[in-house]
């Protein structure tokens, strides 16, 4: 029940204090020493499970709190809804498959791959139908990309609202895809000279469609069937999804069954009534595909308070840009008055998540921590106020503003805005 509803704040604090208590006892054990050392533990005496007890491995029972969570009031039904990646509990740049956030418009289609087909039609020399087996015979590639929902951080346009980076920033994930370049499959059908757009379409009950310009389709889009080495999860589009690197997640059509080639955009529901950005003057931007430079501190954050008191503190977070690689991330502990350049660690791949760290010696005083990313083309993550000045507060989508966490003296953390 707790996992479904989300962990409450009191529960989080208890968990945090329990961890802190364990850490303290390890450091300052009384008479004789630490029972964790002095006493023989069950796992130190008895045999554990054998090799086939867990044919598909799952996380330790002590990691049961690391789950996707949703916000029930956000949407009318769970079948057309979203849940969030627990960014605060993760490290590195790769998101485990079972923790990648979900966004469906008609629930999770459960598709038998033997019954799945991909059709290419429209402005092509010959309309084609492929089985999954056919697709596996094209030359394939491996690429690591982030996928961010255009509405990630969308609930924060009018001010700080949700207390946790899982909720404020958790509509992003990053995995390695294996698939066939879309270009290869389009060329197999033969593009006519007036081909300007493609329309990928899903096989689910929403039949998701988006118009994608042909330049992007021929640039770096993939038709993917694996994520992190294994088959796509059903909730991520099994058996086939489109990968549209650096562009908004809605375009990465899941359960991909058809790609039409045309000479004009189709003006589908998800690119007119939705995924258009209403500005303060009543006009709206459309075809706002690119996900801009962005970052967030994942630890400490409201769901992951500082439980160890003053001393060494690892501030860590994620940065990404649809433009390419992240060049630099700066971190402030005083609300943006003074900044230090953080350390990027791990692979730096274009259009993928980047991991950063700032290792500090915390004196136990209150902190206002923020991160600010800069990408390889020099785009710098703006403040929320700069975005509001340019766009108003009704855009819903594309909020890449700088996030502030207030770390209090007791180690608890709160989502705030500063000026």
């Amino acid at each position, binding site marked *: 029940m707790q996992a479904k509803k989300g962990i*409450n*704040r009191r529960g989080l604090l208890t968990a945090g204090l329990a961890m802190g208590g364990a850490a303290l006892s390890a450091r300052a054990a009384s008479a004789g020493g630490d029972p964790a050392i002095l006493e023989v533990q069950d796992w130190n005496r008895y045999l554990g499970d054998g090799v086939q007890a867990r044919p598909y491995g799952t996380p330790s029972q002590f990691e049961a709190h690391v789950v996707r*969570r949703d916000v029930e*009031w*956000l*949407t*009318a039904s769970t079948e057309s809804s*979203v849940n969030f990646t627990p960014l605060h509990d993760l490290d590195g740049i790769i998101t485990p498959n079972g923790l990648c956030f979900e966004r469906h418009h008609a629930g999770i289609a459960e598709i038998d791959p033997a019954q799945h087909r991909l059709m290419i039609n429209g402005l092509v020399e010959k309309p084609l*139908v492929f089985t999954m087996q*056919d697709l596996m015979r094209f*030359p394939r590639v491996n*690429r690591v990309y982030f996928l961010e929902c255009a*509405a990630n951080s969308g*609930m924060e346009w009018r001010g*700080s*609202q*949700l*207390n946790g980076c899982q909720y404020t920033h958790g509509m992003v994930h990053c995995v390695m895809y294996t698939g066939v370049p879309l270009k*290869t499959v389009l060329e*197999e059908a*033969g593009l006519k000279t007036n081909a*300007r757009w493609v329309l990928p379409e899903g096989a689910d*009950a*929403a*039949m998701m*469609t988006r118009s994608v310009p042909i330049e992007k389709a021929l640039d770096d889009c993939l038709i993917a069937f694996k994520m992190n080495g294994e088959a796509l999860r059903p909730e991520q589009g099994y058996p086939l999804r489109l990968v549209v690197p650096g562009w908004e997640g809605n375009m990465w059509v899941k359960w991909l069954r058809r790609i*039409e080639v*045309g000479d*004009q955009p*189709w*003006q*589908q529901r998800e690119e*007119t009534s939705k*995924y*258009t950005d*209403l500005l*303060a003057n*009543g*006009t*709206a931007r459309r075809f*706002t595909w690119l996900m801009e430079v962005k970052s967030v501190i994942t630890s400490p954050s*409201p769901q992951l308070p500082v439980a160890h008191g003053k001393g060494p503190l690892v501030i860590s977070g994620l940065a990404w840009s649809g*433009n390419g690689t992240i060049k630099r991330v700066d971190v402030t502990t005083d609300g*943006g*008055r*003074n*900044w230090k350049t953080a350390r990027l660690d791990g692979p730096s791949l*274009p259009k993928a998540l980047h991991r950063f760290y700032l290792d500090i010696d915390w004196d136990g005083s209150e902190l*206002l921590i923020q991160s600010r990313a*800069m990408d390889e083309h020099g*785009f710098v993550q703006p403040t929320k106020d*700069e975005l509001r*000045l340019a766009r108003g507060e009704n855009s*819903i989508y*594309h909020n890449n503003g700088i996030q502030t966490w*207030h770390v209090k003296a007791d180690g608890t953390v*709160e989502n*705030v*805005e500063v*000026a």
Partner: protein
Amino acid sequence: MSKSLKLAAALAVTVAAFAAPFLLAGQRTAVAEEPAAAGAPFAPHQPGAFGLGREATPEEVAAWDIDIRPDGTGLPEGRGTVAEGDELFQEQCAVCHGVFGEGAGRYPVLAGGLDSLTNERPEKTIGSYWPYLSTVYDYIRRAMPFGNAHSLSDDQIYALTAYLLYLNDVVTDEEFELSKANFADIHLPNEGNFIPDDRQEEAHYAADAEPCMSACTPEPVKIVMHARILDVTPGSIDDEEGAGAGSVD
């Protein structure tokens, strides 16, 4: 060449090459090459070179290719009136969208909201926001009713679309009949208010300044807003106080 000039140059090249004002990615400097080798397996190839897949039959294409464009391309033969649509709407749609398209719960509002787009809480309906009528027909045909898609006839969808035009005061006659013949003549009020993506020209990007590293504010920074005040965090003890504001779609 300054970065902003490069940006302008990149924009110009992009617009000229693609005849559509967008960027594949923000490009202030040369685009980095993809890290992996583009080798022989990925060189451009002739249609059918791999010999994979088979030709789709016309019946197969017709079964799946049901999309409709604003110019009416893709519309099936058929017709339906406002009055017919009213009856169908009450049976099939009102449980979620309300008797007059006003929406039930958090399900989408389909009518009303005219002149609300600059309000603090805009209502983005077919009449107030959607640019094209074709999207209404297309979306009902592919995804509605929610949970029972592909159960309506082409005539029924014309009737429902006609009723939605009536609810939004685009047509005022209950006897109005929408058909393939008159469909593309109808324009929605907000069609002209959509603009291309010009985010890269916003002041915070256009300035293209090296970010400030020290003494960036004259005074110490103060907290001006707490999440706690608007506490809508799921699972928090005051959940009962009601839903927060916002939407993901």
